[in-house]
């Protein structure tokens, strides 16, 4: 049904405009609907979902488009977050403006991406996975320990008191009043994150349908053939790492400003794994799928969190099982079940939907 409506939209310009307007209205009203029905804790979760969408789209460039399995992606998120924390908090007494920090975070994360990419480009899939995983851990361990002899990261305690995001004297930490309306802080963050997420979606779509995007996919499909077509695979792969990382850097900066606090704990391997799951479970390489994956995997554990305790009380009259463990248990089961029934992801791109390794025609097998 979904595809049918999308198809008809492509042909009818007026319907497309109306649909976009409705969609925009829905997205604009969404935080008020959530805030008034489910409360502020869910609004926070929605804000986080926006950040995860940005992360998932960034990782999708590396994993989904270029086919490079990166399991240390959260390191770039960490780089963006820590840069923000260091440049806008009492820790060093610096309070630089956001329009400087966020681009700087993107650039620095991009640089880290290139740094990781350069020595690892020759590696095959699984080796790349483990090296990137190691890289992510290295970044985290340094953040954990760079508090002595010179205190840079404040170690495991992390950095707190980070400036909230503010632009031109307007801070998002307090309710805004716009044209007589009062926009609460969480709502304002939602709009900012939504805008940036949409921007990243836009950039990703443009990239996908470009010479660069085709080169990425070509490398994923067959690296030797891509080289034979004149693609400088080294540079193009580095570009994928850099672009993906810079998205992570942006999301990281926003996270630091939103949360007001960063610590190495927020950037452990489980987080990298989570973002990878969003990409693969949603539908690798397919932008709507990846967005769906980001939203689902942010919300699902929270639903389990909110459900695990009360449902037990309702059934057994008391809490028998540790709700935290139960919620992650259910989450793990959900991952398994979804992948078993939809191995190509929930919403795969049409081109990958039927891709099953064993089924792919033998003439495309490698080896001369």
């Amino acid at each position, binding site marked *: 049904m979904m595809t049918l409506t999308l198809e008809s939209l492509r042909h009818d310009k007026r319907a497309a405009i109306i649909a976009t307007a409705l969609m925009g209205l829905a997205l604009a009203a969404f935080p008020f609907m959530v805030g008034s029905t489910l409360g502020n804790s869910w609004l926070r979760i929605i804000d986080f979902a926006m950040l995860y969408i940005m992360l998932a789209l960034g990782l999708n460039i590396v994993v989904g488009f270029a086919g490079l399995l990166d399991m240390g992606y959260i390191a770039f998120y960490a780089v963006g977050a820590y840069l923000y924390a260091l440049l806008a908090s009492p820790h060093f007494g610096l309070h630089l403006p956001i329009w400087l920090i966020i681009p700087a975070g993107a650039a620095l994360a991009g640089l880290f991406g290139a740094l990781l990419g350069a020595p690892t480009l020759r590696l095959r899939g699984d080796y790349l996975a483990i090296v990137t995983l190691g890289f992510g851990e290295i970044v985290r361990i340094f953040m954990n320990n760079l508090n002595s002899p010179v205190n840079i990261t404040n170690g495991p305690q992390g950095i707190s008191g980070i400036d909230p995001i503010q632009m031109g004297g307007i801070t998002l930490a307090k309710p805004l009043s716009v044209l007589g309306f009062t926009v609460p802080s969480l709502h304002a963050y939602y709009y900012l994150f939504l805008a940036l997420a949409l921007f990243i979606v836009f950039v990703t779509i443009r990239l996908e349908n*470009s*010479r*660069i995007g085709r080169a990425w996919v070509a490398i994923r499909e067959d690296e*030797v053939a*891509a080289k034979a077509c*004149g693609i400088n695979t080294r540079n193009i792969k580095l570009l994928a790492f850099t672009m993906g990382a810079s998205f992570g850097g942006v999301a990281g900066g926003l996270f630091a400003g939103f949360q007001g606090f960063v610590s190495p704990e927020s950037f452990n391997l489980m987080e990298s794994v989570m973002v990878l799951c969003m990409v693969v479970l949603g539908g690798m390489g397919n932008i709507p799928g990846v967005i769906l994956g980001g939203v689902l995997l942010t919300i699902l554990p929270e639903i389990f969190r909110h459900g695990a305790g009360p449902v037990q009380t309702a059934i057994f009259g008391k809490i028998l099982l540790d709700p935290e463990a139960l919620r992650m248990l259910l989450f793990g089961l959900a991952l398994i079940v979804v992948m078993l029934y939809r191995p190509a992801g929930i919403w795969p791109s049409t*081109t990958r939907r039927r891709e099953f390794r064993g089924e792919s025609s033998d003439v495309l*097998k*490698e080896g*001369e």
Partner: protein
Amino acid sequence: MMGANLLEARNIAKHFGGVKALTDVSLSIRKGEIYGLIGPNGAGKTTFFNVLTGLYHPDGGELIFAGDKLKASAPHLAAKCGIARTFQNIRLFGNMSAMENVMVGRHVRTHAGVIGAVLHDSRTRREEAAIRRRAEELLHYVNIADRADDLARHLSYGDQRRLEIARALATDPKLLALDEPAAGMNGTETEGLRTLIEGIRSDGITVLLIEHDVKLVMGLCDRVAVLDYGEKICEDVPSVVQKDPKVIEAYLGGSLA
């Protein structure tokens, strides 16, 4: 047009461990000709191909291409110089459409980068349109325009071969190197392929053909070189090659009769 050498291989050597895959192979391909490279299985044809297209580094010798010494250090540079290739076991981008496969071939002759892609400025739009146009032309040229939107891996075997040739042509090659393009084709398909290769040559592109199908090679090529155990044992026009005793011996008097 024919006459000057487009490619000159001088004393090319390549060994893998102790196995000598190529020993002192020298040959020259003239501009505008269809040049055949034949030999029994394991004679070193594909190895020569891989050296020529930058996939392997030669252990000795040099390649002169269009007057310049070819530093065949990387495959993408070979493509840039004007050497395009197909693969013995077809290597397409299976999950991309036929159209996209050919568009990837234009990569080396186009320039749009990340900024261009994101801004989608008029120059990028023009370039993108030109890429698409050229890809459409090439799909027509190899006669698979009706399959443009199909995934490459859903194409029939013969169409996949044609698509691979279209993709190679998209790089605007001076030399098109085809590695056993007729392998696995039936008689009609082979006949179509012959017409296609002749057409490519008449458009001014030099063709290097590795082939098992000796009949096809002899009927199509202007000149033929024969490799045996990594050495060139003969290089001449087909009629002479066919009568060369060394060649006949190499093939054990088999399919050359």
